[in-house]
């Protein structure tokens, strides 16, 4: 009797055991038999390159998709969750990589939906929101009676997290929760995570931001190409070790060498005002990378969608190569040679049911046409070049883009714009949700573009990235450009305060 109890106790140590789990999508083996255990009460990081199978495992654990073979044990007993509800009933809660909010409803309703059993005939109380969730939202300045569709993508992510933590949970899985959060918001989230940990909640944490792993996680498990690589305690490990483990080789420098090849000014904004931004006066030169830093909602996306012809301009001038231009649609922008990589890859960037090839040529249909018809040989040629030179992992150019991993999708989109040969290229959060390896490739690509004479504008919420990449940095705060940094001035100490409205030099 005593003996049995002891064994049970031992097993209790492992809250979740995953043994030999396999999953294939058609020809793609997303998981090739992974084994590892998650101890009760720990924060367990799951890392790996794009497409390593992290999200797939999360979906299997939480009952979204079935596994092909293998076993999952919860507190020693094998479990098969056939639906999200079943998993939730056993205390397994997930913040998925994809947003899972109802845009047409309010923040409160969304949270209440995820926290309560919706399948009941009870009356829905809208202010009955978990205190934890409330404090998280308040910390981000989100009002609970706003429609989710009115929120920016980061605010939406916060709502999602708030929804998950407001459920009574034993295991909380966070799949890249911080991908679109700013540092402040991230810290806010980490406070909450710490608090949950003290309450005994076990957390599985997935992120491509390795420094976060070192900040909050106890243990880290590494996946590579659907296979299990290893599990290590975080303590005593360096970031370098982890990266080596992940990519299976030595990691070179993250950021390419900053050459300053700045030439003539291509784009100039004078007292440019529009929906979401005011009085912006900047000039952008060919051959340089301009970083745009700021908090979520600072208006960077608004400013540059306006430059790209997709947002309303109230007043001010835009000069392209010294000539005043007015851009009313993306087509006008494209004609001038302005390209824009949108921040919302899934909703706006990709054409999910079309092939990789069609996604690549999407922005240069004109250049791939003979008269009114498309030139198929040229299309095959161009897309092949892009696929090869960017190292896009896809079965073929004919594969549908939605079957690619996030990093590879992003590379397709970058390829799309490289193919259109822009003179000004705006990359809005180009590294959102992609792995270290892919990030490095993206940085390299952006730098190569700049070196070839393109004016590159990189909007990013990650200061390290902005600092590492940019020749010049603009800081935006509440719709205005409040600071500019150049050369040696580009330090975290200067930029950090600027984006929160302190110490701007403009």
């Amino acid at each position, binding site marked *: 009797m005593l003996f049995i109890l002891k064994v049970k106790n031992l097993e209790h140590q492992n809250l979740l055991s995953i043994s030999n789990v396999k999953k294939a999508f*058609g020809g793609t083996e997303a998981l090739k038999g992974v084994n590892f255990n998650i101890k009760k009460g720990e924060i367990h990081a799951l890392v790996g390159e794009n497409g390593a199978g992290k999200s797939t495992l999360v979906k299997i654990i939480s009952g979204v998709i079935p596994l092909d073979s293998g076993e999952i044990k919860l507190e020693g007993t094998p479990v098969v969750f056939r639906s999200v509800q079943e998993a939730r009933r056993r205390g397994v809660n997930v913040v998925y990589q994809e947003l899972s909010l109802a845009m047409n409803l309010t923040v409160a309703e969304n949270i209440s939906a995820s926290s309560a059993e919706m399948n009941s005939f009870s009356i829905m109380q809208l202010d009955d929101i978990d205190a934890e969730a409330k404090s998280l939202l308040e910390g981000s300045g989100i009002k609970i009676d706003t429609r989710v569709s009115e929120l920016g993508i980061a605010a939406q992510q916060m709502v999602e997290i708030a929804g998950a933590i407001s459920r009574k949970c034993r295991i909380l899985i966070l799949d890249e929760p911080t991908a679109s959060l700013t540092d402040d918001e991230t810290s806010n989230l980490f406070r909450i995570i710490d608090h949950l940990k003290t309450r005994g909640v076990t957390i599985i944490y997935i992120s491509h931001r390795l420094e976060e792993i070192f900040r909050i996680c106890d243990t880290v498990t590494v996946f590579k*190409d659907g296979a299990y690589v290893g599990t290590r305690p975080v303590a005593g490990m360096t970031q370098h070790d982890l990266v080596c483990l992940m*990519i299976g*080789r030595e990691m070179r420098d993250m950021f390419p060498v900053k050459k300053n090849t700045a030439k003539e000014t291509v784009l100039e904004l004078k007292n440019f005002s529009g929906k979401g931004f005011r009085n912006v006066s900047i000039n952008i030169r060919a051959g340089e990378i301009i970083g745009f830093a700021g908090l979520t909602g600072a208006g960077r996306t608004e400013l540059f969608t306006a430059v*790209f012809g*997709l947002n309303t301009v109230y007043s001010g001038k835009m000069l392209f190569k010294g000539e005043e231009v007015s851009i009313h*649609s*993306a*087509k006008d*922008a*494209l004609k001038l040679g302005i390209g*824009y990589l*949108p921040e919302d890859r899934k*909703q*706006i*960037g*990709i*054409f*999910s*049911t*079309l*092939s990789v*090839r*069609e996604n690549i040529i*999407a*922005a240069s*249909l*004109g250049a791939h*046409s003979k008269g*009114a*018809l*498309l030139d*198929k*040989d040229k*299309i*095959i040629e161009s897309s*092949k070049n892009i*696929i*090869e*030179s*960017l*190292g*896009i*992992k*896809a*079965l*073929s*150019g*004919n594969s549908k883009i939605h079957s690619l991993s996030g990093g590879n999708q992003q590379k397709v989109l970058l390829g*799309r714009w490289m193919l259109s040969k822009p003179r000004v290229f705006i990359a809005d959060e180009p590294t959102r949700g992609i792995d270290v*390896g892919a990030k490095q*490739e993206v940085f*390299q*690509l952006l730098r190569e573009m700049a070196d070839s004479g393109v004016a590159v504008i990189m909007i990013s919420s990650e200061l390290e990235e902005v600092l590492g990449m940019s020749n010049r940095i603009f800081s935006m705060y509440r719709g205005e450009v409040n600071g500019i940094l150049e050369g040696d001035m580009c330090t975290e100490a200067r930029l950090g305060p600027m984006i929160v409205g302190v110490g701007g030099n403009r």
Partner: protein
Amino acid sequence: MKSNLSGIFNRARKSEILNNRFVPGLKAYSQSRILILLTIIAAMVVCLSIINPRFLSYYNFSAITGNDSMKGLVLIGMTLILITGNFDVSVGSNIALVGIVTAWMMQAGLSPLAASMLGIASGMLIGLFNGLMVTRLKIHSFIATLGSLYMARSLAQVITQGTPIGKFPQSFIEFGDLYIFKIPFVLIILVVSVIAANYLLQHSRLLRSAVYIGTNKRGADYIGLRTDAIQLAIFVLVGLLVGIAGVFLTAKMRSGLPTAFTGLEFKMIAAAVLGGASLNGGQGNMLGSIMGLIVLILISNAMTILGISVYMDGVIMGIVLIGASVLDSVSQKNVI
């Protein structure tokens, strides 16, 4: 620059990439769909011709194709609209209006050719109106075209005051019954149009752009497509196809009927969906749509051939529609 792994990966796949044909039209998805439809069609043809050998007669062939080819033309338009992610439920009323305008103009003394041109123009005008409502006023296409369904039908009745306009010049009537080498002229038009539409859907810049729009409307804005202009163009194109179909059908009917083709739109949508078009946009192919139409026509032909009670018409039509969709869905799951 690229990681080792992806390099290896790409080398392994290179031949595959090269070998892959460009045309993404007949993807595995639609292939299975077309196969199913072909099987259904073949089975029906065999059964019907065993039951009544005259099914395979030249007469039956020319009767079916002479009467329904022009619906195929409308179907091409409907498929395009669905691919763009829109609906056009006004096509039935629009045909009636085209017929009335054509008949009216001939009655007023215009030559058949001039009257036909005006008829086609009126079809395009309705298309333009639909397109403007959708792109300028941002009204959901189903509602906008439902509005013009009612309005066009009403105009047809107002013009005629309810009474059909007949008594066409002989030249116009003969035009509707034209045969070339014993093949109905309308069938030739249809076959040429389907081949052209099928080719253009893969290769024309305009129609490919429509596919991008149907797949992701917001995304299409970001790649510099003039989404409004393209959608408008597609609506007008449908108006043109409907106009041509309307003129031929009117000639064939020898009368401009204000009540003609009520409910045609739903049959067209059903045929297109049967053929693989998605009501969410971005998907659809001409071959599949036409096969869907053939299935629907064969069913109704079978009703007459087999002498099945008219009341069962709907039951069998419904069962085939649902059955084919279920079969297709099941086969999809086996593929993936």
